[in-house]
């Protein structure tokens, strides 16, 4: 159970049960649907930008504890960050989720998901919100975490 406890830390369980920024933003600047074909889960990301800074970031949808907690923590982490900071964090987080590598400067809060790489079929869960956020700037179509 120890490994599992590590995967589902208290923080994850908490964010799963009480997800932050779990709502639709009215008059959003960007919006995107994300879909995980492995499980059928979907979530939506809403973003407002002011002066190149993410002023508001929220999400809605269904998903597993990992995906919900990851989305919730992401919204907390990225609100107030610039787009280029968000982009960097996305890359660092993806690196950690896929390979377990923690880059200096990655906010501590994100490292609760550092063990996910040991569960290959769950990596997409952790990345779903991040991918959706990341790609929302490109097009307005549905995206997914397929490329991992």
């Amino acid at each position, binding site marked *: *159970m120890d*490994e*599992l406890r590590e*995967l*589902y830390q208290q923080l994850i*369980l908490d964010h799963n049960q009480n997800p932050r920024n779990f709502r639709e933003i009215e008059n959003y600047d960007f919006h995107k649907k994300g879909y995980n074909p*492995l*499980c*059928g*889960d*979907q979530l939506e990301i809403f973003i407002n930008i002011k002066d190149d800074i993410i002023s508001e970031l929220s999400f809605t949808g*269904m*998903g*597993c*504890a*990992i995906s919900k907690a990851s989305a919730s923590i992401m919204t907390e982490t990225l609100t107030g960050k610039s787009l280029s900071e968000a982009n960097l964090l996305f890359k660092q987080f993806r690196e950690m989720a896929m390979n377990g590598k923690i880059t200096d400067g990655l906010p501590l809060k994100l490292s609760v998901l550092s063990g996910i790489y040991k*569960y290959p079929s*769950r990596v997409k*869960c952790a990345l779903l919100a991040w991918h959706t956020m990341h790609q929302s700037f490109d097009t307005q179509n549905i995206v997914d975490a397929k490329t991992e």
Partner: protein
Amino acid sequence: MQLNPNVIKEDFPLFKKHTSLAFLDNASTTQKPQCVIDKVNEYYNEYNSNVHRGIYQIGEKATYEYESVRGKLLQLVSANDNYSAIYTSGTTESLNLLAHSLSKLVLKVGDEILITEMEHHSNIVPWQIACEKYGCTLKYIPITEKGEWDISQIDSLITQKTKIVSMIHQSNVFGTINPVKKITELAKAVGAKVILDSAQSIPHGNVNIVDLNCDFLVFSGHKMLGPTGVGILIGKTEILNMMPPFMGGGEMIYTVSMESSTWNEVPWKFEAGTPNIAQVIGLGAAIDYLNNIGMDNIHAYEKKILAIAEKKLSQVPGLKIFGNPQKKGTVISFELDGIHPHDLAQILDEHNVAVRAGHHCAQPIMNKLNVPATIRASFYIYNSEKDINQLVNGLNSALKFFSIQ
């Protein structure tokens, strides 16, 4: 004779390695008994060679072993002389073969194909593609809350335009054993060809192709103790004779010239290239093993284990079983209130319980149930009450873990 799962389990080497594993994902694929593994090895070790063309002893032996599995397959489904057995790579390829070659034979613009909302993707997507190609319409028999076909409107679904009816014998989501004979009768009355996806029924009991009166029957070796990479299409020879081939290449030809080619006889017309020789031969051993236990005994045991499982699961707080069909095989789909199926599967894994979480390649059912996924536990001959207890313990512990209980 009563089947003893613990005695049977002895035959499966995987459970020697994983002594405390409750493997409950049998609808996805089954474990393999030693005799199947041995038979595959026998081929590689003793007469590994290509079939049909080697005038040397190991080649003759390989051909004999490979060809003799056809008879076992026909016998397994009680087929008479009107049927032939074709080797494919799986149920999916069998259905694609039909969606290609049978469609070419019978479909024209405006025709209809009838399937059901309960189908596996492998019995949906090939027909969507065929319908697009031939300008036909794909119709669905709807399903009810109970996980059964709703055939109240069947008269409007089977019409003179219906050319192909392809339906699932036993549901891989609800376990429903479907009343296929009724549909077959109506389909035959309008001259439609009838296909039975028996991927989930063949491993679990007697399937009599003559009694069910269908034209084609498809299933997979790996779901019935056989090797991966081999599937079956059993069909009426008369129709197969008229169907154009699926793939072109070695073995399936009669003559090839630079201008054109002619086809070999059924079944070889549909077996292009070097076949899955070791896998077919291994499947033969799986059939022998099943026959040795007796399909009746398997069926009887599964009834018993299903009843126990349903009873024990119903005592888990917040557990809801999807579907409640009258006739049901050993497949149970459920959800545990407040816990996502994939999180649940992860926790069960930690308890050495292997179940499936997902859409089970049946998204239309998921849409109907309005869930993205379910948890599915599916049982086979080596599963005992102990496995059920382990599952229930895992579920209770998941409830604690997520602080729901």
